[in-house]
């Protein structure tokens, strides 16, 4: 028996014919299975039966009647299935785009963004992908990736205008839709080695924001299906993300290089031995993400051999970049005043005048030290302008405060100071530091200042140590004292009279045996 609809669907299935002859295999097999008592018990657990008849697909629901005959109800689910498939594809694409976004977002490095873009495009959109960035010089940076392979960077000396759409994309003209290229006309450099005959090529611009980000080229082999319209739209969604990431990376690189150039002048110098006197310095800015702050130090070698080198260490009120800018100004001013380095009072007065006349409202404390080798000893003259007094570490482990005092600079018209003169015997050191060390709060119970006493006690254990070890030890103790808490900028400079016989010949900074 059959109803009218069944007649339309299976015209051959007239009453009396054998089901296996007129219905598709999947249905007749199911029919036979149903009549077999062994499997009948499992029937309820099985998913609804489905299969294809002609161009449409159907779900088949059997009802067994009392006389043992079976009625098959066929339900057309073609549209349902198509919608499900479309949904599945959309979900996959969304998951892919989410993955692309998170991969691209994680890096601010242009090279890495190009690698990720090429690899993800090759693995998901084509048989091979090229990411081409705007030329920085005469050559085009090109990252090529084959499906399942690793991205490879090369530089091509080619004219992008030879490829339709490429020149415009690289120059940042408004993004045009993807361009189809005749595979036969594709230039040789675009085709990865051993790729085989190309079926289709599409060039998609990578939209940058204000800056050209480059172009994405997708290649498919001749045996792979050509790009559908839907795929092309999808490739554009992908390109939008890749372009945004690449232009952000380019902007970051530009900003970072600007910062680095400006910062270079503000970074504390690396110190070493000069004319038989050991110098070592260490600096820790208050913010871990900063590299500069309101503390500064410099060592200026004497212009004339045999005269004293000048050390300056100071602390500008405030911290962070703004304070660092003022330290740059003070360091430049002191540099210009070097011909007067003999006369600490005069240098400090002139610096004071310069600061009072500037638009900065900040003031600063600093200490100047002139150090010169005399025989095995080092003669020192120390002048503090409102700064913590330098500490002298004697060979015995005794720690003395240098008897210098004075007024801070940049606040008052007159800055009287008193200079202390002393001598360091071999192995003895003078420690200049900023109050970031002594005022560091922390300790095992929290909230306690590191303090002068603790600093002096720590120093007395450092008797006879090389200058850079003393710097490191003080920095380490102060940092450990602070723990994870916040702190001010911390700077230390140590001036040492080298221990006799153990002259510093090579230390990686000075000219040594192989660096002359």
């Amino acid at each position, binding site marked *: 028996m059959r109803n009218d609809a069944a007649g339309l669907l299976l015209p051959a299935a007239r009453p009396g014919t054998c089901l296996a002859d007129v219905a598709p295999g999947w249905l007749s097999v199911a029919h036979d299975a149903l009549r077999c008592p062994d499997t009948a018990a499992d029937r309820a657990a099985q998913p609804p039966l489905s299969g294809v008849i002609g161009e449409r697909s159907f779900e088949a629901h059997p009802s067994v009647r009392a006389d043992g005959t079976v009625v098959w109800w066929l339900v057309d689910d073609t549209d349902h299935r198509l919608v499900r498939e479309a949904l599945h594809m959309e979900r996959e694409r969304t998951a892919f785009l989410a993955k692309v976004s998170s991969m691209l977002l994680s890096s601010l490095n242009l090279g*890495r963004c190009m690698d990720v873009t090429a690899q993800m495009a090759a693995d998901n959109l084509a048989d091979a992908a090229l990411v081409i960035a705007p030329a920085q010089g005469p050559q085009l940076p090109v990252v090529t990736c084959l499906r399942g392979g690793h991205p490879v960077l090369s530089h091509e000396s080619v004219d992008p205008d030879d490829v339709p759409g490429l020149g415009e994309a690289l120059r940042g003209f408004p993004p045009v839709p993807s361009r189809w290229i005749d595979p036969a006309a594709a230039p040789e450099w675009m085709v990865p080695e051993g790729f085989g005959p190309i079926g289709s090529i599409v060039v998609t611009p990578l939209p940058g924001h204000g800056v050209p980000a480059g172009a994405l080229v997708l290649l498919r082999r001749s045996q792979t299906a050509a790009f559908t319209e839907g795929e092309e739209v999808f490739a554009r969604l992908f390109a939008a993300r890749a372009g945004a990431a690449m232009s952000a990376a380019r902007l970051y690189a530009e900003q970072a290089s600007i910062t680095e150039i400006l910062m270079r002048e503000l970074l504390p110098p690396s110190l070493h031995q000069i004319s038989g006197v050991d110098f070592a310095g260490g600096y820790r800015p208050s913010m871990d993400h900063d590299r500069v702050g309101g503390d500064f130090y410099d060592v200026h070698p004497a212009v004339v051999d045999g005269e004293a080198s000048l050390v300056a260490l100071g602390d500008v009120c405030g911290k962070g970049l703004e304070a660092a800018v003022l330290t740059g100004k003070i360091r430049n001013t002191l540099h210009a005043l070097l011909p007067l380095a003999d006369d600490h009072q005069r240098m400090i007065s002139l610096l004071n005048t310069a600061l009072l006349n500037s638009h900065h409202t900040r003031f600063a404390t600093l200490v100047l030290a002139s150090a010169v080798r005399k025989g095995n000893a080092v003669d020192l003259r120390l002048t503090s302008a409102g700064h913590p007094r330098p500490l002298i570490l004697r060979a015995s482990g005794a720690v003395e405060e240098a008897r210098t005092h004075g007024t801070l600079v940049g606040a008052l018209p007159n800055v009287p100071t008193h200079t202390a003169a002393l001598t360091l015997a071999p192995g003895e050191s003078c420690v200049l530091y900023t109050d970031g060390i002594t005022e560091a709060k922390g*300790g095992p119970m929290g909230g306690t200042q590191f303090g002068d006493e603790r600093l002096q006690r720590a120093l007395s*254990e450092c008797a006879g140590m090389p200058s850079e070890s003393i710097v490191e030890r003080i920095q380490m103790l102060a940092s450990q004292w602070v723990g994870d808490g916040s702190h001010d900028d911390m700077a230390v400079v140590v001036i040492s009279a080298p221990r006799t016989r153990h002259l510093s010949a090579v230390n990686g900074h000075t000219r040594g045996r192989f660096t002359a």
Partner: protein
Amino acid sequence: MSTRTSHRLRGDEAVRQLADELWEAVSAADEYTATDLVLRAVDDGVDPESVLLDVIAPVQGKVGREWAANRLSVAQEHAATAVNERAVAALALHPAARTAPERGRITVACVDGEWHALPARLLAEVLKLRGWRVDYLGAQVPTPHLITHLHRTAADAVALSGSIATRLPTAHAAITACQSVGAPVLVGGAAFGPDGRYARRLGADAWAPDARAAADRLAGQPLARPQPDHQQLDDLPHLADQEYTMVARGSASLVRTVFTALEDAFPAMRAYSELQREHTAEDLAHIVEFLATALYLGDEELFTGFITWTAEILTARGVPAHSLPPALGILARELKDFPRATRILRRGTDALIPLHATTAGNRA
């Protein structure tokens, strides 16, 4: 070429003798002799990598052991390390140590808070010798600096060195951050455990027991690019109970509480000098720090190992360790609502029982 071969033949013996001579120079803080020794060895054809790893590295290891055994003072240890560092710097400038970079780019850095830079420095020099382009960032690198550097350079891998176990939570943050910007991380150093168990637990891409193994690992199969979207909690799901966070955040007040309670339990403590009190507080802070680290890693052995080591050190320096069990008891009382912390402290107390019995026996 012939000197090179003859040295290879003499091999181990020559290298051992060189290490002995360097130890003499380093322990006397004799920088001149030390650098001269190292340079002359390379002049004579000893492989620079061998000088770094078979001469300088073992000598530095001995510096650490001698210090731990109280046979070197703090000043001597620092001076010896400084001399060793200068020897490395001198070696790096020798013409025989100059290698043109032909491999990829590696960033070598120490975990923030890590001051022992020499192991990382040795690795950096070995990688340079093997043809890598190396960016050596030095001791205690704050994670933001490390990440900024990676954004700028796109290093093929990061080699991270750490010797202090209590810096492991910081190391974990650094490892995860490097991975999130696409750089795989190889870790090494005593902090990661003798078998590298903490390296695995913290999701590092590779671990190496020493500089040579690290260089070999990097020379082999390139480290795979890490998956993005990886978070610290994925490696250590137990962190969700917040026990680590609570203990680490409240460590100063925990130390204060335990200190006061200890004073009640041991009236003798009231007679301590200011310095003694500070040392006691520092010891307590250390215990809390190790407890926090053990909570972070979910590893009780880290804590019991530290506690027994502390007891031994205290005993070796003539300080009776009998205040340790009560200190742990008071901590356990303070942290009674934290099941993992309570369990770790109980294990620590149990570990002290045999030691305690021996010291008591000795005194009797």
